C-alpha cells in the first residue's frame, strides 16, 4: 500500500432480512423488498430492478443462489462506497464462522446446543473421525468477490486452533485411551493430533485452492487464541498458525479480539509470516479525543512492540459492539496515538475491532465512513 493507514474491515457484515428470509425460501414483505431497493439505489448497484423482480418471485434453488450473490454484491459495494481499501464480501455466503467449515468437512457430527452465556448457545460438533476435505468452502465466494471489485481482497478464514477449541474431540481422545497414564496429558496430545490433522487435511487444502484461484491475502481468524493462556497451549497455538501458513506464496494475517493481549503479546513475535495482527482496541477505549491519557484502550499495543512483534497492525479504531458512531477526530487520535507507540507509521492499518455483523447497515456505514475520514485526517496531520 502506498498511502499510510489503509482502511480495512474484519469480515462479517449483518445479513439483510431479504438475504436471511429469501435464502430460507420465505416470501418477503413489501418493506423488506423496499429496503433492498433503497440500499440498491444508495449504493448505486447496477441491475437493481432485475434483482427486485427476483425478490418478488417464488422460491427456487436458483433464486436462493442468486440472493446469496446479490447480498455479496451489496456488501462489496457497501464497503467500496464507504471508501475502504481492503475488504471481503461481508461473509454473506457463510452461515456463521464455525458451522460453515465444520459442515463442509467430513469427520464431524453436530451434537446439539451448549451454553455460551445466559440464553445464548452455540451448536457444538464433535470430531468423530479423522477430518477430511470434501469440497472447497471459501473458493466460490472468493471468486465472486474477485469478479466484483478491483480493490484489495482479504479472505477471512476461521483458524484451526479455534475450530479445535470449539469442537469436542472424541476421535482422538478415544484413539489415545490407555496410551497415557495422565488424563490431562492424554487430552493435550489428543488435541495436538486433532489440530495438525485438521490443518493438513482441511485447512491447507482450502488455502491451496484459494491461492490457486488468485487469493493474495488470507486472514486467519482465531478468537480462541488465548482461551487457554498457559505457555504450553500458547506454543501450540503459535505452532498451529505457523503450520497453517508455511510455504504458501500469499500474505497471511491474524485476527484476534476480546482476548487476553498480555498473553498474546508474549507469543506474537513467534508467529512466522504473519504480516499483520488485527486487534480490537476501540472497545476498550474512551470517547474523548486526544492522543495522551485518553487513549488508555490502546496501552496493550505497547506490549506487542515490547515483546518484539515487527509485523503490521490492523488497529481496531471502530467499536463494533455499540451504535455510537466514532467521530473522525476520535478515529484520527486513535491512529495518532498508535503512531507514537509503533516505530513506523506504515505498520498501521485502520481497521474495525471485529466484523460488523451485530450492527445495522445504517450504523455500520456511518462508522466505516468516519473511519475512512479519520484515517485521512491522520494522514494530513502527519504531513
Amino acid at each position: 500500500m502506498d498511502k499510510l493507514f489503509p482502511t480495512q474491515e474484519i469480515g462479517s457484515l449483518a445479513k439483510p432480512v431479504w438475504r436471511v428470509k429469501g435464502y430460507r425460501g420465505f416470501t418477503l414483505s413489501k418493506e423488506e423488498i423496499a429496503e433492498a431497493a433503497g440500499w440498491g439505489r444508495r449504493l448505486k448497484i447496477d441491475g437493481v430492478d432485475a434483482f427486485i423482480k427476483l425478490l418478488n418471485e417464488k422460491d427456487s434453488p436458483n433464486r436462493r443462489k442468486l440472493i446469496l450473490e446479490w447480498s455479496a454484491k451489496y456488501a462489496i459495494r457497501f464497503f467500496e462506497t464507504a471508501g475502504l481499501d481492503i475488504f471481503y464480501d461481508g461473509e454473506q455466503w457463510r452461515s456463521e464462522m464455525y458451522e460453515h467449515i465444520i459442515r463442509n468437512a467430513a469427520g464431524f457430527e453436530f451434537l446439539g446446543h451448549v451454553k455460551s452465556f445466559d440464553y445464548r448457545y452455540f451448536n457444538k460438533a464433535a470430531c468423530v473421525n479423522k477430518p477430511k476435505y470434501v469440497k472447497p468452502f471459501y473458493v466460490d465466494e472468493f471468486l465472486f468477490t474477485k469478479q466484483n471489485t478491483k480493490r484489495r481482497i482479504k479472505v477471512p478464514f476461521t483458524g484451526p486452533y479455534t475450530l479445535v477449541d470449539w469442537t469436542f474431540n472424541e476421535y482422538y481422545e478415544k484413539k489415545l485411551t490407555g496410551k497415557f497414564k495422565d488424563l490431562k496429558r492424554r487430552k493435550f496430545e489428543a488435541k495436538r493430533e486433532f489440530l495438525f490433522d485438521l490443518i493438513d487435511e482441511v485447512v491447507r487444502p482450502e488455502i491451496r485452492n484459494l491461492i490457486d484461484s488468485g487469493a493474495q491475502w488470507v486472514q486467519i481468524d482465531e478468537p480462541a487464541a488465548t482461551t487457554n493462556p498457559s505457555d504450553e497451549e500458547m506454543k501450540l497455538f503459535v505452532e498451529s498458525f505457523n503450520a497453517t501458513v508455511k510455504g504458501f506464496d500469499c500474505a497471511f494475517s491474524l485476527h484476534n479480539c476480546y482476548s487476553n493481549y498480555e498473553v498474546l503479546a508474549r507469543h506474537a513475535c513467534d508467529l512466522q509470516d504473519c504480516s499483520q495482527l488485527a486487534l480490537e482496541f476501540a472497545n476498550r477505549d474512551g470517547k474523548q479525543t486526544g492522543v495522551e491519557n485518553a487513549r488508555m484502550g490502546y496501552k496493550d499495543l505497547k506490549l506487542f512492540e515490547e515483546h518484539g512483534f515487527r509485523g503490521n497492525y490492523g488497529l481496531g479504531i471502530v467499536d463494533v459492539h455499540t451504535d455510537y458512531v466514532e467521530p473522525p477526530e476520535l478515529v484520527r487520535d486513535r491512529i495518532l496515538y498508535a503512531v507514537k507507540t509503533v516505530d513506523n507509521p506504515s505498520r498501521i492499518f485502520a481497521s474495525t475491532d471485529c466484523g460488523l455483523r451485530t450492527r445495522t447497515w445504517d450504523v455500520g456505514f456511518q462508522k466505516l465512513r468516519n473511519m475512512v475520514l479519520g484515517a485521512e485526517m491522520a494522514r494530513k496531520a502527519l504531513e
Partner: protein
Amino acid sequence: MIGSYVTGILPRPQELVELTRAYEREKVTEKKVEIAFEDATAKAIKVQESARLTYVTDGMLRWQDLLRPFTENLEGVKAGSLARWFNNNTFYRKPVIVDDIELKRSITGDIARTKFLPKNLPWKVVLPAPYTFVRLSENHFYKNGTEFMFKYAEVLNEEIKSLEKLGFKYVQLSDPALVYRPFGESISEQELKVVSEALKVAVEGVSVKTCLQTFFGDFSQALPEALEFPVDHLGIDLYETNVEKLKEYSLDKGVALGLVDARSSLVENTDDLVKFVGETIESIHSSEKADFFVCPNCDLEFLPWERALEKMRVVGDVAERLGEEAHG
C-alpha cells in the same frame, strides 16, 4: 460409604434451549418459559434418580452462571461485564462489589426448586466457594481480598444455614479458582491458610456434609494444606490433576473424584473407570471409613443434554460397581 452425585449446573434439555432462545428474541412469553423451566427441572431430577445417584440436585437449570444468584441478589453487588469462564468458551457476569455485601433473605431458596426434589433421597446444593467468588469479582469496596473473602464467608454461612433448614443434606462449595493456575504459579501457603479460615467461617455451626469441589486445575498443588480444610470432603478434577503427585499423600478425608470428563463428549467406559479408581483410591485413601464419591469433574453444562445424560449414567454405574466390589 461410596456415593455419587453431579458436580454443578446441568445443561438445559434441547426443548428448553429452543424456548429460551425464542424468549431472547421476544417470541414467547415469560410464563411459557417459566413452565418450561419447571418441566425441565422435574426432568433433570428424574434423570439423576434413574442414574441411581446418591444425592440429587435440582439441576440448577436457571443458574446463568455459578455466581449469578449472588451477583444479582446480594445487596452491595452489581452485575458487571461478561468475562470468560476460566479456559472455556463460556462466559459469566462479573460481580462488581460497590458496597458492603449483605444477605437480606435466602437467595438460593428461590433457585433451589425444593418442591420438585424427591422426599426419599437426600438433597445436594452447590454454591460458590469464598476464594472463587472473590477472585472472580471486581472489588471496589473492601480494602483487600481477605476482608472481602471473610465478609462473603459470613454471608455464605447464613445461606448454608437457610438451606439446611429447607432440608438440604449436602453442600458443595465450588472452588475452581483455587486450582486454576495457567501460568504455573502455585497458590501460596499463606493464601491457603486464609482460604481455610474463610471456609471455617462459612461452615461454622453447620451440621450437614460439606465438600470443597475443585476443578479446571491440579488439586495436588493445594496439598498438604487442603487436608486441614474444615470441610468433610475434597473434590478433585482427575482430568487436570497430577495423580502421581496426589499419591504422595494419604487423604483421611472423604474425596469426590471427578472421573467423568464434563468437558469432553466422549462417554467413558465404566470398566476402565472402575479399574482406574481402584488403583488410585488404594494409594491415596488411608482410611476405609472415609467417604468416597464418584462425580463428573465439573458442571455438566458444557455438554449437550443427551451426552450429559449418558455421563450421569456412567457416574451411577461406576459408583454401584465400586460399592459391590467393596462389599463383595
